[in-house]
């Protein structure tokens, strides 16, 4: 459509010439007439998506190491059904098919990495269909969704099959003290603390992608370094957790330390890969800070007072709902306007 518009403008220009002058271009004509700017950064949507996929490779490797290579099937099913759903809906809607931009595959991959090991493949497929169908395409497809599609898929699965999705597998190489329960569940239900070292390496129970904090951090820092992930969101989440978690810890030292909260569960995975989803996070810098702090606040409340041990998914989805309002109230003041207002 856009191409047509610019072509139309070029047509008009040519017509103008024909009627008003008799000049014929005497030399080779250069037809790339798109207007300024003539330079562009090297990023494209698909490149961004595939970079994120690349950043997830360490986490995938950790998942396969700790839970066995068969977990690859969960990933394959999730990706295949995500891409399949995307293609089907775009076909039905008679829209251009854009699975190759990688966003659907990424959604599938992220969904898979938030599921518990050995999760049922048929339920995985349902999750992927919901993620793309209800999480993304119903809003109009890429770029228009309000909620993080992968998390919509997972939240749906958690509400549909709460038992299966809280059934954890013991990791390979587990030492005796390690139970199959996640550190947070172990804490909530049995008051057992897991040491930070185990959580850093990853031989603990938990979702596929979240087990190894190191793998997550490697990918996340890579994304920050290449400028895909805006550092404000993970940073504000971490600061938020240190502050709010610290407050709860000071009030009652029975509560885990903020550091435990950061390494436990999917906090880091959420902070690096899911809260930072461009589409569903704020577009303003100030908004990103609010978003990050908000996630941490909601999360700590869920973890300490809620019935469920973990709440990263819920807190991100909850804050996703606020993003339009946050964007609206953190709209940057146009250059020079503030000064003028002050003068008046």
């Amino acid at each position: 459509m856009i191409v047509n518009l610019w072509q139309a403008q070029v047509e008009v220009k040519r017509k103008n010439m024909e009627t008003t002058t008799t000049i014929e271009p005497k030399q080779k004509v250069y037809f790339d007439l798109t207007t300024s700017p003539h330079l562009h950064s090297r990023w494209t949507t698909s490149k961004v998506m595939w970079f994120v996929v690349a950043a997830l490779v360490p986490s995938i490797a950790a998942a396969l190491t700790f839970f066995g290579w068969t977990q690859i099937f969960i990933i394959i099913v999730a990706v295949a059904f995500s891409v399949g759903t995307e293609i089907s809906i775009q076909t039905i809607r008679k829209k251009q098919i854009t699975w190759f931009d990688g966003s659907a595959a990424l959604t599938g991959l992220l969904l898979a990495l938030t599921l518990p090991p050995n999760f049922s493949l048929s339920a995985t497929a349902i999750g992927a269909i919901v993620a793309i169908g209800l999480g993304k395409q119903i809003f109009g497809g890429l770029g228009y969704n309000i909620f993080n599609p992968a998390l919509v898929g997972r939240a749906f699965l958690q509400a549909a099959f709460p038992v299966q999705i809280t059934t954890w597998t013991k990791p390979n190489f587990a030492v005796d003290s390690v139970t199959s329960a996640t550190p947070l569940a172990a804490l909530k239900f049995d008051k057992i603390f897991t040491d930070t070292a185990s959580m850093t390496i990853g031989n603990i129970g938990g979702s596929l992608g979240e087990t190894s904090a190191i793998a997550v951090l490697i990918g996340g820092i890579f994304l920050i370094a290449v400028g895909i992930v805006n550092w404000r969101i993970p940073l504000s989440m971490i600061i938020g957790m240190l502050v709010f978690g610290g407050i709860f810890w000071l009030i009652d030292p029975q509560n885990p330390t903020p550091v435990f909260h950061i390494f436990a569960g999917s906090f880091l995975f959420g902070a690096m890969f899911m809260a930072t989803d461009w589409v569903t996070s704020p577009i303003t810098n100030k908004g990103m800070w609010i978003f990050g702090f908000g996630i941490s606040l909601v999360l700590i409340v869920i973890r300490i007072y809620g019935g469920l041990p973990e709440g990263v998914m819920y807190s991100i989805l909850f804050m996703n709902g606020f993003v339009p309002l946050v964007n609206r109230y953190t709209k940057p003041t146009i250059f020079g306007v503030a000064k003028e207002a002050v003068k008046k």
Partner: protein
Amino acid sequence: MSSKTFKSGIHPKEYKELTEHLSFETIPLPDEITLPLSQHLGKEAKALVKKGDEVQPGQMIAQAEGFVSAPIHSSVAGKVMSLGKEQTSSGFPKDSIVIKTNETVESQKFLFTPLNPNAVTAEEIRERVALAGIVGQGGAAFPTAVKLTPPKDKTIDVVILNGCECEPYLTRDYRFMIERPDDLISGLKLIMKALDVKRGVIGIEDNKPEAIKILSGKAKYEEGIEVVSLKTKYPQGAEKMLIKAVTGREVPPGKLPLDVGAVIQNIGTAIAIHDAIVNGEVLITAALTVSGKGIKNPKNLIVPVGTPIQNVIDYCGGVTEDAMKIVVGGPMMGFAQFDLQAPVMKATSGILVLTKDEVAKNPETPCLRCGQCIEACPLNLMPTKLARYTQLNRFEHAEEAGITVCMECGTCAYTCPANIPLVQWIRLGKQKVLQMQKERVVK
């Protein structure tokens, strides 16, 4: 030295190495020149010659019409061939005078009597600048005499010379700064005198340490003149950004630099003023950079105004096989060309031949709400929203969101990973909104 700057902006690859080491060369006179009557912002000049007239170099062939306008001078000796519409580098045909060069006549040297820069009055400077047809060399081609005549109720306290040259590729201002530093400072002093201002600042991006060194050395001996090093960042050279970086003042939307007490002139403009006053020259040549990977021999050139772009390109050895796009001006704000007979104009600062690799056409997708355009926009606009409102024909919303403030610097479109032609949409929306506002006034 710590460098000053403004918030946001981008860092495109600079490509200055292609030409920054090359001194200016003067290109031979072309066989024929085309002089559009409107090479400046404001009213078109009024032709003083008719077909068949003989003209001399430096002779005024069109006079300024009204206050915001500038005269046009012939840059060669020759004969007027025709008056009519000719293609220009802005993409629209304009009324032009075509002159055939007469090879036997030597080119003009002095047209005005040189004046003593220490003795001239403000009035004389303004008059001379107006007569010499000087327009801003920074791109907008605003008649300089008008800028030197501020309304009585405004107090100006600083003149800033814009040595940023923030657009990639271009090195014209840089060459001026290292080749003609004394003339440049003389020009600045003349501007300060015309405006009765005591403070002069030369703002230079810190990717030009050589220029900063030379000019700082000279400025030491001049009262009230200082050199400010600025962070290398696009669009550091945009007026509002430069004023912010140098003085901390912000020009409100719809206002001019002089509303915050500043006047900005380009380096080339200062040189032209010096030439007009001290040497008595009129503005009949353009200094420009010819660059890009698609040109065989990149150069910095002095070109008679009116020379066809084709001639300039030929002089630089022609284009390479993979040339894709020819741009007049900088790569961020310049115009793509489809007719190489269009002439070099007074404010033309560069001619770029870009290859496929440099232009990098990427597929467009819907906005990903990454916020990079917002983070980058130096005027704190929300380009993604402006473009989307335009796409959906919601011009009231676009107006509310400040679409008319946009200076079309292209920063947003440069960053956009979804490769949305943001500036094009914004331009379209801006036109519609301005039209709407006009209709409202009529009502």
